[in-house]
């Protein structure tokens, strides 16, 4: 028992030490030397850098929920820290059991496992102390509540991005005022200057990354599919959430674009023989070891695109940063009326020549459970095979291998 507690203390110290991330970088660079996709290496370096800076505490640390715009944190020269992203990484390495079990003694097991994992990690003392927390009321319904709980644990202020249900002129004005107010309050609380010129530079970076994202998405229309959907749902979606507004984001998306461009020019798909193409709905997949993507790959079924990487927002105008950010938030197709999301899914089905659709139904996720049935009806009316795949993104105990295999294989058989 004592030995375990000592090990935990050592581990916590290592995780909290910025030096750890400096040491890890050359080691991981060496391990990733054979990785043919340079964007993946940038993702690893970005994570090490942003985590090191969060623990170094030379800049204010702002915790954010996954859908809160990171441009605000970068624009205020703060370090963003997104607990859900860290939870997905912890799940990827198969370490989520312990933090989830710890969180379950504090909070309902009905809550999304990414949040429970984050809470457990925070309670264990693994996370960097926040100076401020910003959450968004879209899309995840638990974000505000959990991040408010975090603000109580750490005794720091909590601010919220709360967009209106519909866009339009009135909604835009409301959102612009809210963002200005949020930035102003943040500056006051953290004693930071509000430098709109710097925010415009951050938006220029975000827009540069967006332009490469658009190019990447166009390349991904090619058959055979150049990038595995499993990767689209991991580091690509991760950078989409975490890096926009930073130089890292531009480097990553540019690098991925160039890598995919070469693959598409060579007609090189990620599967040896692509028989059909799937669209993956929902922003996540199970990150722990599972068979889903292997089963699909073995049968020649490519996950060609994921709605997590659908580019829903218009180009940003760095000279009008607040209006641009408001437009980005308000154009999110997963917030607001379901018709917008259905229209986007229709576009993806057409653009990516989709044969079948999987809607991953993550345990505890309320943001998509209502829409899943309506989307299914819409797709089935158009003759597109569709399954709701129940599972859990972070909690392996909620994964049922036999039933998952049967559901996935039955979908493949419907495609055949």
């Amino acid at each position, binding site marked *: 028992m004592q030995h375990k507690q000592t090990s935990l203390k050592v581990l916590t110290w290592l995780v909290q030490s910025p030096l750890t991330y400096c040491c890890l970088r050359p080691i991981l660079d060496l391990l990733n030397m054979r990785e043919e996709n340079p964007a993946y290496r940038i993702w690893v370096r970005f994570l090490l850098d942003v985590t090191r800076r969060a623990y170094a505490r030379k800049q204010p640390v702002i915790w954010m929920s996954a859908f809160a715009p990171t441009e605000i944190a970068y624009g205020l020269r703060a370090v963003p820290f997104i607990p859900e992203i860290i939870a997905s990484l912890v799940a990827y390495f198969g370490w989520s059991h312990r933090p989830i079990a710890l969180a379950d003694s504090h909070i309902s097991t009905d809550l999304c496992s990414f949040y429970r994992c984050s809470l457990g990690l925070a309670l264990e003392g693994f996370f960097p102390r926040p100076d401020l927390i910003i959450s968004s009321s879209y899309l995840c319904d638990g974000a505000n509540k959990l991040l408010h709980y975090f603000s109580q644990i750490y005794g720091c202020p909590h601010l919220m991005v709360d967009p209106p249900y519909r866009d339009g002129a009135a909604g835009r004005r409301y959102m612009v005022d809210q963002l200005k107010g949020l930035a102003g309050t943040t500056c006051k609380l953290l004693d930071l200057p509000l430098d709109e010129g710097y925010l415009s530079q951050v938006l220029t970076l975000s827009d540069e990354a967006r332009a490469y994202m658009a190019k990447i998405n166009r390349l991904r229309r090619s058959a055979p599919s150049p990038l595995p959907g499993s990767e689209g749902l991991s580091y690509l979606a991760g950078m989409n959430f975490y890096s926009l507004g930073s130089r890292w984001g531009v480097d990553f998306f540019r690098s991925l674009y160039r890598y995919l461009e070469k693959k598409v020019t060579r007609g090189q798909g990620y599967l040896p023989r692509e028989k059909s193409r799937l669209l993956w709905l929902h922003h996540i997949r199970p990150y722990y070891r599972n068979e889903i993507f292997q089963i699909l790959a073995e049968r020649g079924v490519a996950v060609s695109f994921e709605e997590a990487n659908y580019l829903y927002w218009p180009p940003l105008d760095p000279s009008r940063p607040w209006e641009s950010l408001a437009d980005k938030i308000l154009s999110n197709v997963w917030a607001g009326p379901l018709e917008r999301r259905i229209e986007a899914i229709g576009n993806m089905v057409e653009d990516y020549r989709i044969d079948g659709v999987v809607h991953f139904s993550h345990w505890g996720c309320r943001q998509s459970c209502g829409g899943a*049935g309506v989307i299914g009806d819409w797709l089935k009316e158009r003759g597109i095979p569709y*399954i709701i795949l*129940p599972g859990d993104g972070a909690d392996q105990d*909620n994964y049922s291998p036999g*039933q998952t295999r*049967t559901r996935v294989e*039955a979908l493949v*058989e419907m495609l055949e």
Partner: protein
Amino acid sequence: MAGRIYAGVDVGSLSSEALVLGDDGVLSYSIVSTGANPQRAARICLGEALARAGREEKAISRLVATGYGRIRVPFADREVTEITCHARGAHYLFPTTGTVIDIGGQDSKVITLDERGGVSDFVMNDRCAAGTGRFLEVMAAALETELRDMGRRSLQAKKGVSISSMCTVFAESEVISLIAEGQRGEEIIRGLHEAISRRIFRMTKRLRVREEITFSGGVAKNEGIAETLKGLFGTQINIPEEPQIVGALGAALYARDMEHRGS
């Protein structure tokens, strides 16, 4: 004896079935308990079915495995899910089938079919085994009755007792409490059947159910559940002579198709 033969092996969680098919129809079948070794169960039921058909294993042109243990049948030429196989088997037996309800050992599924017997849509129960064959086995043990007698006994009851829990563990405790309260076994069984049927009926609401409905899987042998389902759907339900072999039949039909297509 000449002629090509094809085999389907359905390895379920509780029972395994093998069916031998010729070009002119079903030659034989066998049903065994799966036990702890699915591969062995597959081998035994296939051996029995072949013996009944008077044929040897080397005479099999193609063999398709299905069921949850399909990946544990190394001698299969192909694996096909039980969803697709039950659809195919039901369509063969009842060509105008629009919907299949399959309740097996640990899964229940509702499958809608296209005109050719292909799957157009399906729903499965979640991880919980409530309302499946295993659930009924546990309840039969709690009631100290034979599984095969449950259907007949439930039909003797005028009404069912309300069962509030469908979790196998909690329902077992509830059944024991009901027995202790002096409730008649027949009424408890009917209550269980009604609860299972309601659960299946609710699953079908997620699909566009098309008539005719065919009921397959081991639980379809329970005439009590078949009756309550008929009442809920308000229509006749096809029940195959041996509902447990529908998956293996579908698998054998796929095996025959493979041979004919040369794949």
